[in-house]
């Protein structure tokens, strides 16, 4: 039942991609927390220095969160913090920011241990607290038409002297780009070392979308994946945006790990199109996006399709499908689907639920992983997010249900 439906969706969206890519030249928007784009009704670049969303925040993005909390700093007598006007220096010419995340979770998977007689028993992994992200950002508005952006993702052993220490293959410990836009009606040209505009950008790297069910816990497109190249994004009207670009796919090749499929010296190309119609009524404003991206390098091809529907300040629904293959010579295909519902109870309390299925067909074997995640984004004070979640993960070999807590400090 699923395959004909997916083929139809794929065909329609691929047509949209081709039409968009040929009608204009451009770059991208992806979303660190896509829910925010839908419930705020703004493009990601309004709140993030990075045109593809995520990372460092603009003055608007920073200020919209600087007073969002169950208790704001003025109510705690910290008026100086509450009344900060922006996150920059030199009248906002230099913007700074950071994300720090800690996660409490059971890492790994249930295992079978055997006693001296060879009798089995199931052992759950231990719950641990791990640092997930320590990442500062800087953005420099060098001129009216040139914006520079840079970030460094500290690794687990960075503070022990190993400056660049990626956890996953293909992960980059830094990103840097120059964004050139002669005027606001012109395309944005982005040049540097950064993540191509693949689909939607999420801040939860455990999502199955860019993973491979046959290689659990080893994402194909890792968090902070970046390659060197250029993109051009064009948004002729508020409801349409398209991106094309090319990269040197060195880090992608490392993640693929097979030079027959992708040589480290190969180029990659990205194309992305996104429609963002918005419907304003007397009582409700409905936001939406519909889009697709295609990332292609060597024999590796990654297609992404996404639909989002939001009600301003109330909630959102997102559906995303990601498909990959490694050429006809290789019997290795993935299809990952995610649906996510968010309900905004307060500006500082959002409930989330998502279901995911990742399927891989590889050399005649099928691997399936399912995930169900129920949780909340709670901002007790500005610049602090607590994200409690209950997660169920089921693979062909095991299933595990656990609660997790993420502590997110940001600026």
């Amino acid at each position, binding site marked *: 039942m699923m395959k004909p439906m997916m083929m139809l969706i794929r065909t329609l969206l691929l047509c949209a991609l081709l039409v968009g890519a040929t009608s204009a030249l451009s770059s991208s928007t992806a979303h660190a927390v896509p829910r925010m784009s839908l419930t705020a009704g703004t493009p990601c670049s309004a709140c993030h220095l990075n045109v593809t969303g995520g990372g460092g925040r603009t003055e608007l993005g920073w200020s919209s969160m600087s007073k969002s909390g169950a208790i704001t700093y003025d109510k705690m007598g910290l008026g100086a913090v509450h009344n900060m006007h922006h996150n920059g220096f030199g009248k906002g010419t230099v913007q700074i920011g950071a994300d720090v995340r800690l996660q409490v979770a059971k890492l*790994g998977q249930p295992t079978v241990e055997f006693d001296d007689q060879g009798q089995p028993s199931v052992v759950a992994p231990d719950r641990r607290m791990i640092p997930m992200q320590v990442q500062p950002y800087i953005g420099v508005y060098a001129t009216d038409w040139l914006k520079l952006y840079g970030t460094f993702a500290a690794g687990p052993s960075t503070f022990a002297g190993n400056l660049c220490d990626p956890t996953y293959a293909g992960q980059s410990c830094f990103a840097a780009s120059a964004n050139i836009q002669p005027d606001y009606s012109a395309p944005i040209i982005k040049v540097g070392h950064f993540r191509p505009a693949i689909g939607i950008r999420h801040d939860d790297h455990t999502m199955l979308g860019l993973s491979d069910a046959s290689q659990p816990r080893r994402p194909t497109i890792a968090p902070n994946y970046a390659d060197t190249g250029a993109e051009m994004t064009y948004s002729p009207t508020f409801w349409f945006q398209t991106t094309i670009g090319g990269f040197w796919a060195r880090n992608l090749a490392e993640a693929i790990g097979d030079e027959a499929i992708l040589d480290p010296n190969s180029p990659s190309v990205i194309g992305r199109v996104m429609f963002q119609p918005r419907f304003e009524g007397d009582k409700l404003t409905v936001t939406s996006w519909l889009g697709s991206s295609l990332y292609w390098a060597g024999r590796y091809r990654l297609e992404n399709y996404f639909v989002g529907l939001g009600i301003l300040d109330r909630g959102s629904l997102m559906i995303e499908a990601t498909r990959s293959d490694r050429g006809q010579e290789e019997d290795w295909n993935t299809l990952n689907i995610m649906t996510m519902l968010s309900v905004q109870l307060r500006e500082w309390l959002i409930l989330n639920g998502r279901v995911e299925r990742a399927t891989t067909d590889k050399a005649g074997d099928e691997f399936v992983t399912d995930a169900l995640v129920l949780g909340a984004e709670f901002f007790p004070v500005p610049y602090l997010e607590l994200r409690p979640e209950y997660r169920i993960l089921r693979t062909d070999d095991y299933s595990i249900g656990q609660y997790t807590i993420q502590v997110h400090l940001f600026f």
Partner: protein
Amino acid sequence: MSEDKPDVHFGPCTHFILSRRKFLGGTATALASIPLASACEFANVDDSLLQPVNPTIAFNTSMETVAAIADVGGVGYVEDGALRVLLIRNAEDSLLAFNSKCPHQDLEMAPAPGAAAATWDQNAQTLRCAYHQALYGADGGVIEQPNIPPDVTGLERYDVEFDAMTGEGTVFVLGDAPEDNTSEG
């Protein structure tokens, strides 16, 4: 300022006190939910993997998963139910046998379907886990810790008999091998 409400200031803590009740109430609710969430936790494996293992696992290089160890530097594996043993031909007359689960996060290191195989460096005599880059020596000891916490202590190692001429061998998973017969260790 309205006429029916006197303009009385209690300082900046006024709002804080009122909000603190809500805050503490929410925090208490969140804390109370932890035992509930805890009670809902579970961990299961497929029934087919919950079988007792035999004390030994016999193998030979004609088996598909073992064939690679016919050559020095080759890596293969054997399994009995949920137990999978990584086999490494580290020398002409030597074979290493380890539990194939990396002890860091219990992820699979064998070159099996659904796993990112670890890399054996024949020259350095080291095994690198593909997931978080833990590096182990030929004795199973840790040379480099994985690049995310926590630290690990080492691989579980088994005695193994191996006849390089016939390509046949036995892994002793529940005890030591008989004296004088082990290929390594």
